[in-house]
């Protein structure tokens, strides 16, 4: 039986807690992690399939780079640059899909780009590894700043408290009442326990903030307000200026997602 998900308390400075419970874990599980995750979720595949030819994008928290080859129907028509904190994962990502990819070792809270350099950005299963609401909001802000002020498109995916029935995970049951999401540790079994040698299995605990319903769009709106952006469709604003529209948000396979578009009028 798989070890179960437990509640987490962030009991250290968030950046140190993330080092111990996110970055170190990914560095250790990189090769195995890579072999078990490859199927793009439909919403992500569709988002990338509709990006115009000639556009350049950022995959913030690219992991093993599984989205860098998309869209498979038009290889090389758009270019996605992969950013990640884990060097072992980037070593895999840099040849994702058997072709050389552009990858950068960096932090999703860093800002190593010229402003508005990208046409689109995705951040899949990454922001939920940040240990405070402020850091999660900063991560959203970095995405809004990284893309074009006039046409930038963004897709964000995070883990939901509401888990798929098919998912093997069980979440501590008190979490369903939470409006603010739930901090958990999710076990990763590195070695199975061995009966012959009586070796206990090695289990690493990864930190996740599981998002509550409405929490992700809430974060986007808070962020946009602080940046002084209009929130909604550009046609709703007669005065002109800069804005961001939530194109869609929803739940897919144990995750919440939100798709955004920046506009200038």
């Amino acid at each position, binding site marked *: 039986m798989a070890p179960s998900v437990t509640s987490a308390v962030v009991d250290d400075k968030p950046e140190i807690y993330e080092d111990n419970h996110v970055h170190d874990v990914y560095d250790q599980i990189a090769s195995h992690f890579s072999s078990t995750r490859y199927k793009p979720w439909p919403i992500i595949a569709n988002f990338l399939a509709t990006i115009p030819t*000639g556009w350049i994008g950022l995959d913030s928290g690219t992991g093993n780079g599984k989205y860098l080859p998309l869209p498979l129907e038009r290889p*090389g028509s758009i270019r996605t640059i992969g950013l990640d904190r884990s060097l072992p994962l980037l070593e895999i990502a840099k040849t994702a899909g058997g072709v050389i990819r*552009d*990858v*950068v070792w960096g932090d999703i809270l860093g*800002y190593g780009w010229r402003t508005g350099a990208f046409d689109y950005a995705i951040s899949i299963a990454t922001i939920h590894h940040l240990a405070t609401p402020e850091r999660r909001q900063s991560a959203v802000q970095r995405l809004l700043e990284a893309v074009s002020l006039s046409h930038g498109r963004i897709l964000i995916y995070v883990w939901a408290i509401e888990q798929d029935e098919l998912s093997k995970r069980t979440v501590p049951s008190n979490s369903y009442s939470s409006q603010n999401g739930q901090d958990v540790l999710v076990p990763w079994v590195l070695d199975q326990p061995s009966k012959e040698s009586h070796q206990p299995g090695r289990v690493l605990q990864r930190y996740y903030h599981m998002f509550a319903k409405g929490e992700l769009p809430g974060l986007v709106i808070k962020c946009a307000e602080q940046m002084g952006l209009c929130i909604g469709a550009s046609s709703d604003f007669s005065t002109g200026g800069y804005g961001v529209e939530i194109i869609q948000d929803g739940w897919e396979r144990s995750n919440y997602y939100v798709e955004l578009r920046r506009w200038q009028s």
Partner: protein
Amino acid sequence: MVRLITHNLLACHVKGCTSNNFPLEFKDVQVELRDAEFNSDFLRGFIPKIEWKALVDAARQVGNTSLPLELPEMLDDDFLKSLHHVLLEIHVEEGSMTCPNCHHVYPISNGIPNMLLAEHEIG
């Protein structure tokens, strides 16, 4: 990989370093050339987003002088082939990139640029 397509997007992000922080300057580079699939549609769509002078200068720093100083108005095949080569076939494997403003050095190792900063350097 640090190809010039990536370099054209990177800027220094040390705390307080917000102007003249682009483009980063290549130093002590080891370069490898590898063929990439030519896609003229991608290039035509991408050209308006290029910081042209930064690309020309970076190409010179890694030993390529094939690009004109001004972006030509006529995008013929010869030009697109040169651009394709500069953006996507020159790989900086080792070396570093230095910020023109604060002189922070971002190392490149095994084809991967290190844009991580220490906690006290983050803005």
